[in-house]
């Protein structure tokens, strides 16, 4: 939880992006959260508890694994996998929830709410809430409830309540709207665990900091594994929390290219995608100013991606800043390319990646041509693909 730049500023901005664009009722709750976090983040007891939980409950550090057959397949540069898929609950999402539930506990909140897209953040939130015996409500778009039924059941098994949201496009963005409405209504006793580096300040900062354990470990593991810093880190970007966690500790390490891969859905040129950094413009959604998919009237556009976790029209404000400043690169791969990578990585490495993660893998097809044998490329394996088995089987025409 160390800081590599002075962003966000005191008003929550990364350059021109970020801020607090919320109804007045939430302003105090955000201030209270910010004050609590600022007080605790450098507190030794708090840090000790956070890292203890990450070690004993999550199973960190997650390995950095040499992907031998994938490396051979491309024939240029070594490919390394940061195994966030091996975390308890199956994705990077647990890192953030472990940290935020400690904040909730410290603030004396009795009720936990969260939004979820692919369901991984819902599961991770329900998990930490169960552990502390706190009431937990998860908001999930009705379409995602359908395509991520396994995670819906997991959330219920963990004792949380799932609220299916059928307003708007019935996906992640609408789940976030509904969670914000719940928070406005129950602000006194409720803690809202946002699941990505999105939302109003201080969330993008808090979620980034808790997820930065990924990048911190990568610095150590890179030294141990190949004696230098990596040439590139590749991560998928929906809201952008797994990418931000991996990128942040590397912001001042200039030899490492930081590459975020967005979901191009049916293809960038069709307009049916979820790639605001590639094909969007700055706008305000869910409390922050950031790149956004919107029409000429400032209305938020519907998104399309085979991956529920990337199916979001906005992106964390710090990514917008990293894009404009040129420190990170953002590209996009479409549904077909991601599905191909999903199968390829399963067969070559014995790892079934989440469909979100498959987007990062798919970009290797382009990226590896830019590297020589001496290069080291890290793919952040943000989550495992068990939750996506039904989706992929259906696309492949198989009934389970």
């Amino acid at each position, binding site marked *: 939880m160390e800081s590599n730049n002075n962003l966000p500023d005191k008003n929550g901005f990364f350059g021109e992006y970020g801020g607090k664009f919320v*109804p*007045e009722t939430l302003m105090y709750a955000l201030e209270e959260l910010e004050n609590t976090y600022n007080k605790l983040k450098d507190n030794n007891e708090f840090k000790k508890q956070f890292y203890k939980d990450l070690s004993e409950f999550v199973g960190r550090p997650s390995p950095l694994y040499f992907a031998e057959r994938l490396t051979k397949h491309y024939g240029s540069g070594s490919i390394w996998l940061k195994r966030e898929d091996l975390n308890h609950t199956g994705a990077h999402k647990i890192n953030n929830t472990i940290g935020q539930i400690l904040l909730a506990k410290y603030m004396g909140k009795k009720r936990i709410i969260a939004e979820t897209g692919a369901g991984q953040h819902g599961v991770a939130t329900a998990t930490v809430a169960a552990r502390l015996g706190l009431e937990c409500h998860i908001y999930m778009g009705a379409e995602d409830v359908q395509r991520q039924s396994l995670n819906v059941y997991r959330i219920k098994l963990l004792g949380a309540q799932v609220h299916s949201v059928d307003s708007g496009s019935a996906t992640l963005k609408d789940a976030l709207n509904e969670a914000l409405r719940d928070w406005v209504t129950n602000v006194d006793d409720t803690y809202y665990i946002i699941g990505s580096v999105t939302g109003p300040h201080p969330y993008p900062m808090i979620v980034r900091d808790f997820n930065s354990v990924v990048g911190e470990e990568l610095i150590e593991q890179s030294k141990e594994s190949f004696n230098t810093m990596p040439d590139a880190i590749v991560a998928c970007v929906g809201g952008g929390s797994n990418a931000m966690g991996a990128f942040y500790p590397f912001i001042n390490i200039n030899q490492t290219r930081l590459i975020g891969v967005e979901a191009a859905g049916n293809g960038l040129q069709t307009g049916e995608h979820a790639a605001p950094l590639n094909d969007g413009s700055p*706008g305000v959604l869910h409390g922050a100013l950031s790149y956004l998919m919107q029409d000429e009237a*400032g209305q938020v556009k519907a998104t399309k991606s085979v991956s529920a976790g990337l199916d979001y029209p906005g992106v964390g404000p710090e990514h917008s800043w990293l894009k404009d400043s040129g420190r990170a690169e953002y590209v996009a791969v479409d549904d077909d390319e991601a599905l191909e990578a999903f199968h390829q990585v399963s067969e070559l490495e014995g790892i079934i990646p989440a469909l979100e993660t498959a987007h990062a893998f798919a970009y290797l097809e382009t990226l590896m041509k830019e590297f020589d044998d001496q290069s080291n490329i890290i793919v952040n394996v943000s989550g495992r693909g068990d939750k996506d088995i039904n989706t992929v089987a259906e696309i492949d025409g198989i009934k389970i």
Partner: protein
Amino acid sequence: MNRLTKKLSKIKSNDKKALVGYLVAGDPDIETTVELMKLFSSSGVDIIEIGVPFTDPIAEGPIIQKAHDRALKKDISLVSIFQMIEKYREFDDVTPLVLMGYLNTFIYHKKLIENNQNNAVDSILVVDIPGELKLEDYGVKSNNINTISLISPTTKKDRVKLIAENSTGFVYYVTLRGVTGSSNLNIDEIKINIEEIKRHASVPTLAGFGIKSIEDAKLLADCSDGIIIGSSLVQMIEQGSEKKEFDRIGKYITEIKKAIS
């Protein structure tokens, strides 16, 4: 003088309370909205608040959300809203008109707001900007349009002062923790908070968000300078839209007006 400022000072000097009526532009369609606005003002609404539809209206409860959705299906934007207002102004150049919406749609139509043809719009309320700031802070200049800021039960005293001083139209006191159309009014808390706001504000303080009945309206009007009715009107508009029967709405407004007078 700005119509809103003029109207509010007249109401105050007559020792009356202001009645603000809310509807969503383009619900069920632009032509009907113009008719509804006429009905509002002829039945006793002093100030009309026009909801600017947005895809993600996070402060709205289900009734107003659905109205936003219905309007968006008709492709309503600020462009069509300004045209609609121009049409309305041919009939009524007195009633103050307030636009209420979300920042993203306003920053997309800076020019429209800056021009504000014939000063047709009197005030803008942006739900999702911090109350101590104005649209100007986001690059939208609007010399003849004043600002309405929200204060809620969770606003701390230091910010109450800043926000109250920033409001040039009126201060909109959100009476409850919740979205539009919720229930559970805590009258004691409301009284204390409005008194605090009035110590700092140079403009009137109006109350809105949870008014569901004539009784609520009366109670809130007693401790404020006026009230805002939204969800219950929008619900009646929804119910009357198919057959374009809106007589109930006029009667309801007249009853409320009487109760708070």
